């Protein structure tokens, strides 16, 4: 047993030295949630790419959607003496103890993609997240511009009932179209963020709005539901993208295929590149010692058919979405 421990210790030390010898001036531990979705897989692979670009040694621990695994991984990183810890927290609460341990070890912690609830904001350096309300707003503003004052009845495919992206993307979209009185949301149902539910619910919408002739646009809280809905629109004998405008959020590769075929109109990107801005903030903090703002908002970029969707598809295809 002692022998085993020695070997482990030796190899850890060796690894640590290897890390430093590798001209990598920084070692960062990243506690990732797990493989819950394609987006999550893309986030992991983009994090690796961004780390490589900067010559940072990134150690990724997969928590398989369990907080206790994340806490174990963080303690492991503290023991290894990494220069910083990134966490994509699986839940919002219960982080205070382990983050206090990291603080005691003087290791800065950066939250990626999600935030936490804590009484002490000093426990983490900053949080890099997307503003999901803003995403909805960008989508709404695009639609307001696209229909340019014409009357437009919108059907909405919501995400999972009660989930924060569903609540916020709905709120943001409503803000985006608030100044356009010509645009009205006539039907809104949940499609559970999935393709098959998106298709089924859209079939219902099409029937309920006299075969879809009353529907001018579809807003889906994610691309997957939009992809399902596009098929339902086609099966009803209408042209998605022309008869019914399609705007959604996420920017996963499949929606770019639909856009290149003219079947979807716009998508708002939830960027998988959360680590890039985090690395930059970390580097600035290490160099100048000045703490970054508590929240770094990632860009919610709008893609339309004019943005060469075929090329974007090729770029995104390999990221593991």
């Amino acid at each position: 047993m002692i022998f085993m421990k020695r070997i482990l210790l030796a190899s850890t030390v060796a690894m640590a030295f290897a890390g430093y010898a590798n001209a990598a001036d920084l070692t960062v531990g990243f506690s990732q949630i797990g493989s819950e979705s394609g987006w999550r897989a893309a986030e992991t692979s983009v994090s690796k790419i961004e780390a490589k670009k900067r010559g940072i040694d990134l150690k990724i621990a997969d928590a398989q959607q369990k907080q206790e695994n994340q806490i174990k991984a963080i303690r492991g990183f503290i023991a290894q003496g990494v220069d910083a810890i990134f966490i994509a927290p699986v839940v919002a609460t219960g982080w205070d103890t382990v983050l206090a341990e990291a603080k005691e070890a003087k290791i800065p912690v950066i939250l990626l993609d999600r935030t936490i609830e804590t009484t002490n904001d000093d426990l983490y350096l900053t949080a890099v997240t997307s503003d999901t309300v803003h995403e909805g707003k960008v989508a709404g503003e695009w639609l307001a511009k696209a229909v340019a004052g014409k009357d437009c009845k919108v059907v909405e495919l919501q995400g999972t009932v009660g989930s924060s992206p569903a609540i916020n993307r709905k709120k943001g979209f409503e803000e985006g179209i608030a100044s356009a009185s010509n645009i009205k949301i006539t039907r809104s149902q949940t499609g559970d963020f999935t393709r098959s539910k998106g298709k089924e619910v859209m079939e219902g919408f099409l029937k309920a709005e006299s075969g879809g002739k009353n529907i001018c646009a579809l807003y889906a809280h994610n691309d997957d539901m939009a992809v399902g809905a596009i098929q339902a629109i086609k099966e009803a004998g209408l042209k998605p993208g022309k008869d019914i405008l399609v705007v959604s959020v996420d920017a996963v590769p499949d929606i770019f295929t639909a856009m290149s075929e003219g079947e979807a109109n716009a998508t708002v990107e939830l960027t998988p590149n959360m680590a890039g801005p985090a690395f930059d903030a970390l580097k600035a903090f290490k160099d100048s010692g000045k703490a970054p703002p508590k929240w770094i908002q990632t860009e919610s970029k709008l893609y339309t058919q004019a943005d060469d969707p075929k090329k974007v598809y090729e770029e995104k295809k390999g990221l593991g979405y």
Partner: protein
Amino acid sequence: MSRLNTAALTKAMPQLLSLMLILFLNYLAFPGFFEIRLQDGRLFGSLIDVLNRGAPVIILAIGMTAVIASRGVDLSVGAVMAISGALAATMTVSGYPVPIVILAALGAGLLCGLWNGILVAYFDLQPIVATLILMVAGRGIAQLITEGSIVTFNEPGLIFFGTGSFAGIPMPILIAALLLTLAIAVVRRTALGLLIESIGINRSASSYAGLNSKLLLLVIYAFCGVCAALAGIIIAADIRGADANNAGLWLELDAILAVVVGGTSLFGGRFSILMSALGAVIIQAMNTGILLSGFPPEYNLILKALVIIVILLAQSFSSLGGWAFLKGEFRSKGANRQ
């Protein structure tokens, strides 16, 4: 024969009445509910949606009925759907021809079913625990096959199973109807149905009577696995992609509910595949109705639960002889007055 039919019809009364009531409520919520037209050579309308969307659960319920009649339950069907869909999609993307893809996906379902069957029949694990293993692990297997992403395909041969049509009837409906006819014929035209009921009522007595109950259980679970795989192919073909995280998620519960709504007892024994299919249609009619009604999505689950409670209460009332009791009360009171 006609007396038998009337008896069967009386027994099916609560389900038929609930279906009619739900369809009528759908009609009230949306007057165009019963309109059907041809769209691109394919029947198109809300009623068709009910059957088309209900087809996967009907297919699951066919297999599930046999399992439940043997006093078992199969919690893994949703995960098996995800596995077969994932396999079909990834093999199609790698360029295998459609017949081989279908056979492989069905074969995967068969293997899963055999696994469950061996655990239940030969290792005497309780069905709920035995199939729970695959329910959890199966989704992981599906995620391994798709590597966590949604695998999208464009092979018309495979898509045909989800969105194609024959003589105007959508393929999922056709497949479900075919399987239903076949299953009922096999179960009722042979002694198989009787044998399933007998091991459901008393497995050891059946074994003593010379029935190879282990083999029969194995076959039942294998059949249920194949049904799940078929449903998995249909839903993957329908959305032209395999979503390992969400395909068939919680559908095992819908399938069990369909069987229960159809009147088959969870304690095994007497069963009716046709009534389970009817149960699946009732559930889907309700789902479609909720989508058409325009209620906010927060009410979906509450509405569903309310309707199901009413159906099950009506059923229990009727099986306790409630209607006959009421009728008798009414008559005797009338007689007293005279």
